[in-house]
């Protein structure tokens, strides 16, 4: 694996019984790249993200994140931050308690200072002691992003992060993702929200029935152009 590469998939296949969710997926992503991963429902996008997060093992092939296999190597999982349509937050804990739990799991040094910074960046400093159950969807997603980035991962995985967000909250989330991109994070974004994604991506991967149907740099363009390209390769 090239030292500049954050993730590498070699001939990855994933079966669920007789159903092949992913077949012969090869992907190499360099540091600082923002990959937009598109595909129809059931194309294998979420399965691919689960493999990258170490939540699932490939049936065949190899998944490497920062040089190690995330499912077998706990330390490799610390290189990954995960944000999904579910918040991955405990509703009965406060915002600070949720982040403190994450800090403990990741063994972070000086956790309280980092938590203060993360809460401020998420605009939740005043609500830090309130239970997450009382938060709006937008606030929950801001906290979820703070949780996903608290340990400063090398690779960020976003699985439909715009789900359930209104226009304003979606724009705010995009703004945060742009800031992360500017700071050099490597990201893989799965979304159907092309309007938001079009400004973020610099590489486009389209999955078609578990296989990579399109993989090319995205040098920017309109939402219509992106939509048209997506339709062409949807199959």
């Amino acid at each position, binding site marked *: 694996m090239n030292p500049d590469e954050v993730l590498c998939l070699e001939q990855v296949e994933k079966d669920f019984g007789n159903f092949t969710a992913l077949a012969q997926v090869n992907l190499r992503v360099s540091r600082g790249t923002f990959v937009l991963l598109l595909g129809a429902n059931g194309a294998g996008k979420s399965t691919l993200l689960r493999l990258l997060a170490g939540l699932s093992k490939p049936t065949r092939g190899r998944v490497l994140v920062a040089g190690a296999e995330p499912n077998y190597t706990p330390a490799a999982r*610390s290189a990954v931050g995960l944000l999904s349509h579910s918040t991955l937050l405990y509703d009965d804990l406060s915002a600070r308690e949720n982040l403190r739990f994450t800090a403990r799991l990741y*063994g972070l040094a000086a956790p309280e200072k980092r938590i203060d910074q993360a809460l401020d960046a998420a605009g939740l400093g005043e609500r830090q002691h309130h239970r997450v159950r009382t938060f709006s969807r937008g606030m929950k997603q801001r906290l979820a992003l703070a949780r996903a980035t608290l340990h400063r*991962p090398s690779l960020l995985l976003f699985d439909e992060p715009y789900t359930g967000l209104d226009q304003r909250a979606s724009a705010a989330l995009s703004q945060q993702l742009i800031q992360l991109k500017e700071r*050099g994070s490597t990201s893989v974004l799965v979304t159907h929200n092309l309007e938001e994604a079009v400004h973020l991506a610099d590489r486009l991967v389209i999955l078609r029935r578990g296989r990579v149907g399109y993989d090319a740099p995205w040098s920017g363009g309109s939402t219509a152009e992106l939509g048209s390209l997506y339709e062409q390769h949807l199959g």
Partner: protein
Amino acid sequence: MSSTLDRPALGEERGFWGAAMAVLRKDLLAEWHTRERLSTMVFFVLLTLLVFNFSFELGGAALHQIGPGVLWSAFVFASLFGLHHTFAAEQENNCLDALLAAPVSRGAVYLGKMAGNLLFLLVVELLALPFFALFFNLSLEAYLLPLLGVFALGAGCLSAVGTLFAALCSNLRLRELLLPLLLLPMVAPVIISCVGTTAMIFQERNPEEYFPYLRILGVYWVLFSALSLILFDHVVEE
């Protein structure tokens, strides 16, 4: 927002015991906020004892005949309530994914969860004991120490196997039905040993007579804790 460039790609793995403690502390904190699990378990045990109190003459000889069975039936079914809660909070917002994606051993997650179940069950047992003594007109002084030993071993065995099966059933639609169906046959030796030992304690038998039962419980706890530690990773894997 945190920068992603000021840190090496691979972080350090959290220590096994530190991770288990983190999971335990989180569960205890959530329980402190809601008091859902413990209140349900305590309420169920007290209700069971009350119903038996009205249904039978619980004093005198009944202590030896049905007392241990009443007590352990209440504990086993209360533990099922607790076990259902073990992974409910993890399922709510897919928190289990965040837990399993963290750089910690999955065995540590199991251990933290198991320790939580053990603590909750021990608290329930201790709170139920004075009420049991009240209903059975029992003076506890003579029995207290050996009873606490059996309670600890019984709770340990139930938590060790129960936590694994709670994880196994957490993704199933009929988990409320399947958990007792799968778990109760597995813990039958535990229930038999606990009821037998408790009966002998109430009969004030020589401790040497119930030591074999305690040994069975101890071996069962160690064996199934070790097995569950190994199997937990496979159980939570999709």
